[in-house]
């Protein structure tokens, strides 16, 4: 199991289209991907867009990513990259 903290940097936050990208990416991996706001205990399934949307992670929010499974290393690397790149909106 891998854990990492990432900050949402794009202007619009984790909005619907950004969430969609995260879902698409997470779904490629066999590992389970959970995300959680640093300031809340609600855990979201990164493969469920509705689940991610309920997090209401706006710009500047730090989220905690927990990945576990056979391809967890590659999954974490790519997901971190996507979020740090601001979902291609920077």
């Amino acid at each position, binding site marked *: 199991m891998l854990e990492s903290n990432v900050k949402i940097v794009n202007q619009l*936050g984790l909005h*619907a289209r950004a*969430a969609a990208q995260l879902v698409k990416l997470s779904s490629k991996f066999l590992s389970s991907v959970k995300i959680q706001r640093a300031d809340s205990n609600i855990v979201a399934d990164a493969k*469920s867009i509705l689940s991610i949307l309920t997090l*209401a*992670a706006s*710009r500047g929010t730090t989220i905690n990513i927990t990945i576990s499974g056979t391809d967890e290393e590659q999954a974490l690397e790519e997901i971190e990259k996507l979020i740090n790149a601001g979902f291609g909106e920077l």
Partner: protein
Amino acid sequence: MNIESEFRIQGRAVSRGIAIGRVVCLHGTKRQFFRLNLTENQIVNEICRLETAFNLSISQLIKIGKVQNETQSKIFETHRLILEDSTLIEKIIFIITDQKVNAEWAIKQVTESYLSIYKTFKDEHLKERQNDFEDVMERLLISLGGGETQISLEKNSIIVAKDVKPSTLVELSKFNLKGIVTENGGWTSHTFILAREQNLPAITSAKSIRRQLKTGDVVIIDGFNGIIIAHPKSSTIDFYQNKQNHNTLTYESNFIDLKGKLKTLDGREISIFANLENADGFKEAKKLGAEGIGLFRSEHLFNQNHSIPVEDEQFLAYQKIAKAVGQDGIKIRTFDLSIENVSNESEENPALGLRAIRLAFTNIDSFRVQIRALLRASVGNKIEILLPMVSDISEILQTREIIESERKILETNGLNIDFPKLGVMIEVPSAVLMVDEIAQEVDFMCLGTNDLVQYLLAVDRDNEAVENWFRTLHPAVLKSIKKVINASEKAGIPTIVCGEMAGSPVYATILVGLGVTNLSMNYKSIPRIRQIISQIAFEEAHIVVKKLETCKTSFEVESQVSQLFIEKWSHLFPKEHLPVAKS
């Protein structure tokens, strides 16, 4: 039987009739639906419907996504991901199975639960996802409509909704629909046009009705008076069933105090003015909805003193009432007197003699006194000047010259006065025939219907021997009014009807149908006229008038009025108030 007690909600009737039934609340915007309880063996089929709708929506989104540019296709991709998120369909299926309800109803509940979460978000960008979510759910609901639906309305259903779409009404009319109640919409909404065609009682403008009624509630809708009665007592039900059985309704005086601008059911604005001579009366008139004084008969001052009052006396009287009326404005008619009123001379035929504007011109000094008093009083006040019994345009032109010369004199004395608005009474046949030309020379016109009938039909209104010839509904009278209204519309100036007709409920209805939009009356008639006009549609009154216009005799018109008014508005007019056709 009913635990909840009876209460009434006032709306606007847009399709007449009485209905007694049970409420079915409609939801949704693009496709409207309602809660339906399923039996155990319908559930599997309902889930199939739902899955088909999901598949249909997803394939639509894929197809649409392909033909859009990148940003747009990303939006549709997002929508697709929402539908493909298994938690969504699982939640909906759970509700269908658990509550044994239709898919639409389950979708509504899931949608609401997500929206309630999104609404708590503070970030505006994140709030925007509400729209995406609603959009997706709407698509899903539409897809559900594409398949074979098992929905059917129960007997005696009355649909209650914010709005009802015409397509929804068409879809639901197949069932035994009894009536419609909505919060929005008006007489001319397509839905209500359809409702009237189907004789389906309908009421609109029923504020917050959806919060006050729920599916299954027993209601009565009185599509005559625009009243919704929830949880009716059995005595109330008996009362309305009885009404339903006797097709024609009896008149009930249920005065509705409508504040604000008077409008017909289909939204035509009608202005109401008072015929008034004293300043104190205006307060009362204004309370009842008068928008100014449409006719101030200045000879009233004369009658009090038995001589023409001097300039200052007139000035003070005009100023006092104009101040009381304020910005609403007052139309002051110059003396409408006969020679007999001002001297010992008598005439063979005073109605056709030296009177009104004619007397003013023969006694030009006292006319100038009145004009000066009016001009002085108009400083800071909204006074318009109205000339009685004009029969030739030269009278208007001459008056203009007099006003202008008096205005200039006052100006040299340091009084800055704008040229006041000038109007004429249309009450003699020559004025009717020349009305198009007259309308070019004045700022407004007033129809004095009593004198118009007298002069047009050559009937002395005070001579009992010819009483049977004094016919307010003579075809020639209707034609004359129509001609005057047409001319004023063409010239873009207002016409105010200020005779007896304006204050009579039956005549006022006909006037509205003829296109009249300004009525001036004794202020005591205002409540009743407001009550009537707010409950008729211009469209209906116009249809009645079209029929009246085909009549050739007074008798025919009068008979038609009685017949048509009973057919359409027996709830508004007691039978004894309708004109009796004189043979």
